[in-house]
């Protein structure tokens, strides 16, 4: 009777998804540092161009699917550029600076979109616990929570309907609407906590708690770093180094904390 709304399931086995998640995270960090270090236009432009070439590898072929995943990002990039254009200190219209800022936002955020679109959360938890010794309680607890997210959407709809059925709605009164939203949000929170504690109990019953004591948790799937993972990181670092070098050589490079 409970039907999950959005099916998260197994993501398609896309090329980028086969890169070990920790290698992807290292590459993302390198790109983030490179993009944030400077406020010139060239560096983020090169990085974004490189990221765009990876879109097919993350399974993002169709413009519609791409837009669905990136519209908040594009909106915030446009917002940053717009605010900068309006309030730029120099007084004139700082088109280059604004475009650089917008590209910077995209250069930093797009790798995250690629990562989420291509990589199975289970692999991420495996890689983090195996290679970086992240707490298994944290990693697999978070994983279980991710699984419940689509159920929250259904729960939210049910709560809103139940309120209406009980005679509670806001009509055209915006203050009542805010109060109603707050009440429903609280009910959702309560429902989420109750569901979460039931899940925690079920997980504890399967040995996922501290009483197991000395038993070291094993990992059935494992997480292996292959040569392609090392190459991927090397490629990302090379890209960042080259971009920065070209930017410096052309005199465009402009460190973020200088005037």
């Amino acid at each position, binding site marked *: *009777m*409970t*039907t*999950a*709304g959005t*099916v*998260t*399931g*197994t993501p398609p086995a896309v090329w980028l998804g086969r890169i070990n998640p920790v290698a992807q995270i290292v590459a993302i960090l390198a790109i983030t540092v490179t993009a944030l270090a400077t406020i010139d236009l060239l560096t983020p432009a090169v990085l974004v161009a490189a990221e765009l070439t990876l879109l097919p590898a993350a399974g993002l072929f169709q413009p519609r699917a791409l837009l669905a995943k990136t519209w908040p990002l594009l909106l915030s990039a446009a917002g940053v550029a717009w605010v900068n254009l309006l309030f730029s200190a120099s007084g004139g219209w700082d088109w280059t600076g604004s475009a650089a800022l917008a590209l910077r936002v995209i250069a930093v955020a797009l790798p995250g979109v690629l990562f989420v679109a291509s990589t*199975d*959360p*289970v692999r991420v938890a495996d890689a983090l616990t195996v290679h970086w010794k992240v707490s298994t309680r944290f990693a*697999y607890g978070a*994983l*279980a929570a991710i*699984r*419940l997210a*689509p*159920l929250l959407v259904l*729960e939210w709809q*049910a*709560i809103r*309907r*139940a*309120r*209406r*059925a*009980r*005679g*509670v*709605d806001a*009509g055209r009164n915006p203050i009542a609407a805010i109060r109603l939203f707050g*009440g429903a949000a609280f*009910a959702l929170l*309560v*429902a989420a906590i*109750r*569901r979460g504690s*039931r*899940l925690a*109990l*079920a*997980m*504890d*019953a*399967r*040995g*996922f708690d501290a*009483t*197991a004591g000395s*038993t*070291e*948790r*094993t*990992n*059935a*799937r*494992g997480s292996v770093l292959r040569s392609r993972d090392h190459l991927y990181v090397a490629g990302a670092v090379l890209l960042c180094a080259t971009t920065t070098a070209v930017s410096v050589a052309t005199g465009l490079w402009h460190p973020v904390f200088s005037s």
Partner: protein
Amino acid sequence: MRVGAGPAAVDVVGFGFRYSGRPEWAVRDMDVRIEPGERILLTGASGSGKSTLLTAMAGLLGPDSGDARGAVRVDGRTAVQARDRIGILFQDPESQLVMSQAGDDVAFGLENRGVPAGEIWPRVRAALDAVGFGYPLDRSTHALSGGEKQRLVLAGAMVAEPGLLLLDEPTSQLDPDGAELVRAAVARILADRGTTLVLIDHEASPWLPLIDRVLEVPFGTTQGPLLPIGSTQGVLHSNGEDPLLRAAGAGYSYRADTAARPALALTDVELTAGQVTAITGPNGSGKSTLGLLLAGLKAPTVGRIVASPKLAGRLGDRPPHRWRARDLVHRIGTVFQNPEHQFLTGRVRDELSLGPLRAGAGDRAAHDRAEELLQRLGLHAYADANPFTLSGGQQRRLSVATSLATRPSVLVLDEPTFGQDPVTWAELVGLLAEARDAGTAVCLISHDARLVDGFADQELRLTSGVDHRQTAGFTGPGAAETPRSSDDQLGRNPTK
């Protein structure tokens, strides 16, 4: 080989438990010995503490959840120490699955217990075979039906080869087919008597062939006497009357990108005052969707929901989904599958007076109505309790009562008897029969064959995946013209 393999013995010695912050004991003075390999059914009224006892046997009642007395021992150790020998299955499969792929989920328990990776997959396959799970290891857990999910959870419990298997209402959230899947899986894994079983299920009879012994958990407090609930106002009941509410070719479809979700084919159905209409059909046929359309909680994508002038009154031709909530609440009442979704206040008493207040009744009238329903439902002792702290059966009765509180002319109920014990079942049917006798048009969405056969005047059986128009058909010969005879088990009382 692990130490202490094979079926486990359970000793409950003078056990009592009181949850933190509650004055009364959930269980007290329990003594029982369960032999290795025995199969036990625990019964008892709603709120008798069956679930508490089972949770204690699972070693999941920690010292921070309340005060315990006596002891529960599994193979001589405390249940908490013996946790690696115990598997438990709860009601809701959604709250028990952890991973997004079936095989990973079964492996989860072995990983936690530190089983070497090389041994895990053969054991996972064996456990899935044992429960008869027929999908590959990488099957998405989201794409399974409720019964299949629960069977997967069972495999996750059995993979650790427990000596004691505890089942806490494992079928109460499943449709009959799903429940049968789970029972068959349990029968398979118990065949070799390698596991002791303790089971709670309100629907006990299908389990009985498996069970060696039935233990009843006694219930301390008694329920108040049943009092009449009062009559619904404004609607007279007569045969051949025009329907109060009808669906005219109403259907619902999701946008193309979510086509996998249930949609409702074009449907005609009429709800008449004093008549009970049952909507039945397999999962995915759109029963709950039709209920939401009739209840004015969702707009049909095709066709119309038409309220009679008598029901709509001054609201005219406007369809129910566009009515204001306070206008809706005393015309069409809805009881949801999950009672907790409906609770809006922190006290049972406030919960019952909320609807009448929203519908514009005065404080005095709302208070009196709440008192009347509290008496009637035997919930007076809980008038100031938080609805969320009630037992499942009490919550269900309260959710029906909150809908009746505004005396709606039409009442739509989604699986009202789901997972209810026989006492609560009978009380619910009593409540609904009184509402019907007082002239309410009752619409039941139900899998409960006993309820539909014994109580409904007409049945609409939805089929899944059809594109022809479906129309309500009357159940018995002549049922359309004549009401069921008064010597019927659930027959009409003389109208008060």
